[in-house]
């Protein structure tokens, strides 16, 4: 994949209008420069840059849709998780097929994206049994099926099909998702939290991401509307805010205190934004955090709830990693539970909680299943959410079924309960071990500090890079963390995402690495990473 034009593209475009040649000095966005120059503005028929890498059709302004005439918000938005480094990795991977000897490694290991099943994690058998039976319902009429499927998966499939009009899994459903499945999810939420959930508050979506987009669409009318986002953040938020023309109001997580979320920081950023004329509409919190992995303490969550209530902010609670907690001293508490246990109800707090089938121990990214639970909104607002959902008709049925399954898995006494539990515990304990092993390995590296991954699927080490390395990066017109990551890739085949893709305190450098490669590959990864880092430091040590 090619480099993406960066968030300060507008500045670039303005600059390019004033100058003949590009000479960009600002390091912080150099890493994300496209290989060609920024586009000219639409009134000009000539490219302002001397770069001739653009094809003829790019420079043609006789066509209605060209780079300089598309929606500028599209140009502005960015998503580093699948960025330049991944593109290079894919090219190397192709080349490895025929040129094995040219490289000091045998394979590319993708640690850039939370995509467990692409790295060998197995799906939960029970869930797939139910999905297969719902895919091809004729199986339920065959006696041979009983020999191939567990009895409770057959029972569950029947139960689900009975909740679908005509048992038609190929039909568009209710735009919020099949009612019976929402009932199961609501029951699952209640079992988890100890507080009731209303199936009518649930909107099922193709993964959690479309739900986030819907909320941004609803909340943002112009760049005067701001959304508070954690820094570092999962770049869906920055991208979605950019696409909808809003303003990201950053609040910095505190690396020194394990990526803690300070209310004083929230207050400061909120007031700062307001003083600039921005109406801050919502606070996005990712818990457990991505890329940072911290699990919020309950009292911290209470402070956040109070903050939102007092300041009139919608709380957007991204809780997709709720099943991924690896440390005994922390526990996941949903924001809904926290708010309700504080005595806050529908009239006190507007809260949207996101969940997905992509993470947890199920890791079913490709199914695109998820939901948001919307509470504390008046009915006229909820109607608008329904209306938006209805334009896309409904989310994919198979994903809906899976979302209901993860929220109502096998129970003690069910046929599949033991094997399900063994699979689940196996995956989660393995994730916890990998999180620990990689964290320890990273902390042993010279000039690297790494907070523990309390949850989620990532490590986000801090690179204290020597000045020489920073200078070398500058010379290559790229950000230091990007420079490091590219070198790492070329030396080891390991693909990670530079911290600049998630934003970070300016002047600090990080990268995000997943904990997802299979356990038997971890020692080799640690060895290669360690060897690379040592030689990197040997080369650039001050």
């Amino acid at each position, binding site marked *: 994949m090619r480099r993406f034009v960066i968030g300060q593209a507008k500045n670039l475009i303005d600059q390019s209008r004033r100058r003949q040649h590009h000479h960009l000095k600002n390091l912080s966005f150099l890493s994300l420069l496209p290989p060609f120059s920024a586009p000219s503005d639409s009134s000009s028929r000539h490219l302002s840059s001397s770069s001739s890498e653009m094809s003829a059709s790019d420079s043609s302004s*006789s066509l209605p849709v060209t780079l300089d005439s598309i*929606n500028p918000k599209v140009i502005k938005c960015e998503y580093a998780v699948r960025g330049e480094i991944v593109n290079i990795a894919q090219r190397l991977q192709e080349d490895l097929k025929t040129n094995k000897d040219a490289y000091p490694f045998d394979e590319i290991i993708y640690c850039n994206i939370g995509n467990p099943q*692409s790295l060998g994690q197995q799906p939960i058998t029970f869930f797939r049994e139910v999905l297969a039976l719902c895919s091809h319902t004729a199986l339920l009429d065959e006696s041979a099926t009983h020999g191939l499927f567990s009895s409770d998966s057959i029972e569950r499939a029947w139960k689900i099909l009975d909740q679908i009009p005509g048992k038609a899994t190929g039909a568009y459903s209710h735009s919020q998702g099949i009612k019976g499945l929402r009932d199961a999810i609501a029951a699952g939420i209640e079992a988890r939290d100890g507080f009731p959930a209303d199936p009518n508050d649930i909107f099922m979506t193709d993964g959690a991401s479309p739900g986030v987009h819907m909320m941004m669409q609803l909340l943002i009318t112009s760049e005067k509307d701001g959304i508070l986002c954690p820094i570092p953040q999962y770049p869906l938020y920055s991208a979605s805010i950019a696409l909808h023309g809003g303003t990201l109001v950053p609040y910095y997580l505190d690396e020194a205190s394990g990526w803690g979320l300070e209310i004083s920081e929230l207050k400061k950023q909120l007031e700062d934004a307001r003083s600039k004329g921005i109406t801050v509409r919502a606070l996005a919190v990712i818990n457990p955090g991505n890329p940072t992995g911290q699990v919020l303490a309950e009292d911290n969550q209470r402070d956040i709830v109070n903050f939102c209530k007092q300041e009139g902010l919608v709380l957007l609670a991204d809780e997709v990693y709720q099943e991924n907690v690896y440390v005994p001293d922390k526990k996941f508490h949903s924001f809904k539970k926290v708010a309700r246990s504080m005595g806050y109800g529908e009239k006190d707090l507007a809260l949207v909680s996101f969940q997905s089938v992509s993470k947890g121990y199920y890791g079913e990214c490709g199914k695109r299943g998820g939901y948001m639970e919307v509470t504390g909104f008046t009915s006229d607002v909820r109607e608008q959410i329904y209306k938006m959902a209805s334009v896309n008709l409904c989310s994919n049925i198979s994903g809906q079924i899976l979302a209901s399954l993860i929220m109502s898995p096998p129970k003690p006494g069910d046929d599949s309960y033991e094997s399900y539990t063994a699979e689940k515990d196996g995956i989660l304990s393995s994730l916890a071990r990998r999180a620990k092993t990689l964290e320890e390995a990273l902390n042993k590296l010279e000039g690297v500090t790494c907070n523990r991954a309390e949850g989620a699927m990532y490590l986000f080490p801090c690179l204290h890079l020597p000045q020489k390395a920073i200078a070398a990066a500058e010379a290559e017109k790229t950000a230091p963390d990007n420079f490091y990551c590219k070198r790492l890739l070329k030396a080891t085949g390991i693909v990670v995402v530079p911290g600049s893709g998630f934003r970070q305190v300016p002047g600090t450098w990080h990268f995000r690495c997943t904990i997802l490669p299979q356990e038997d590959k971890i020692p080799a990864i640690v060895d290669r990473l360690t060897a690379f880092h040592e030689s990197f430091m040997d080369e650039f040590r001050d």
Partner: protein
Amino acid sequence: MAIKALDYDTLNENVKKCQYAVRGELYLRASELQKEGKKIIFTNVGNPHALGQKPLTFPRQVVALCQAPFLLDDPNVGMLFPADAIARAKHYLSLTSGGLGAYSDSRGLPGVRKEVAEFIQRRDGYPSDPELIFLTDGASKGVMQILNCVIRGDGDGILVPVPQYPLYSATISLLGGTLVPYYLDESENWGLDVNNLRQSVAQARSQGITVRAMVIINPGNPTGQCLSEANLREILKYCYNEKLVLLGDEVYQQNIYQDERPFISSKKVLMDMGSPFSNGVQLVSFHTVSKGYWGECGQRGGYFEMTNLPPRVVEEIYKVASIALSPNVSAQIFMGLMVSPPKPGDISYDQFARESKGILESLRRRARIMTDGFNSCKNVVCNFTEGAMYSFPQIRLPPGAIQAAKQAGKVPDVFYCLKLLEATGISTVPGSGFGQKEGVFHLRTTILPAEEEMPEIMDSFKKFNDEFMSQYDNNVGYSRM
């Protein structure tokens, strides 16, 4: 007292303005009545399986195996699945990096996109580049992505047919653009007259709108008309001259119920026209697994193919697609199967061909039954459904009815459709949801109810309609002025 976080007044205006009638007032009322125990026949949305159409067997077998790959290891799998389904499942799984549960390439699995390109090549006789084909969670998402790219603000206009499928009006509203309507001619079987286009564009431009794109829905929704090759050439020439990108919604390309105008893709016609058109007109074509004879709406599988978009623009579209990570993998497999179905000689071919033929021939019959049925009703005139899945009869409401609607605070066709719903349980979508000429009313229904139930449904409609017309014809309404 806490500040209100989110109230109706502070919502994005674009969201409030947008309308999507297909699941609007009529549908909501029908759902209410259904809850109260009334039998409802939902003909508001093109949702074949909801009305009894059975899924094709072969794709469901393949996808079931992909959902549970452990089945492939079981020695008894052959008892439940034919060998070609097993082979196909293995084939599609081999195209993925981790089965159905792993994000694919954000544009869709390269192997499936290759199959789509091969399909397009076979269909049109011109090469198709898989790199310019993006799979999406349903064609609607693709439409939204492309319009999001094209619309910069309310100064940008998009030509949309009237009547249209309200995905277009809703999306343009949401994105803050301007809909520029061009009227299809009901008296010419919903034909597209380029003069209507010219008029609409001129008017828009006089209001300072930059017209950027033109949408055609071929076969049409709700109108069903199939564009002739000559018509398509005219449209493409027009887009070339006026510098418009053409958005070709071709999701109903398999639903053709007459033989005079078979489906021809916009891409084929464009390539046939040669230079300067074939390399000078920008085109995005949309397709889906939801319609045709597959009717797999719930899978949410679609694609778009881009022609003559600059590489940098394609990159930007790719970038936005990557934010959503990837389209759902099961639907991608359905798409692969749709574009490369069983061939003669394959074990499953006979059953597949039989099932497909059965569905298509029945749709053709139902198109006729419905058209004729509507035309036999008082004050109802209905063009033949040449393609797609809908019937869009014109309901000539007497002035008395229009008056009664006003008094009830309802748009006239909404009033009619609500009465129809309450009397018969038939849930339709009023023509106002699709756009129509001022003072002319329609409703949209689908041709999807089971063939055996059609006669009864049409009888029920006729009874209601003719009584309604008698009731309001007798009322005072005709002005003597």
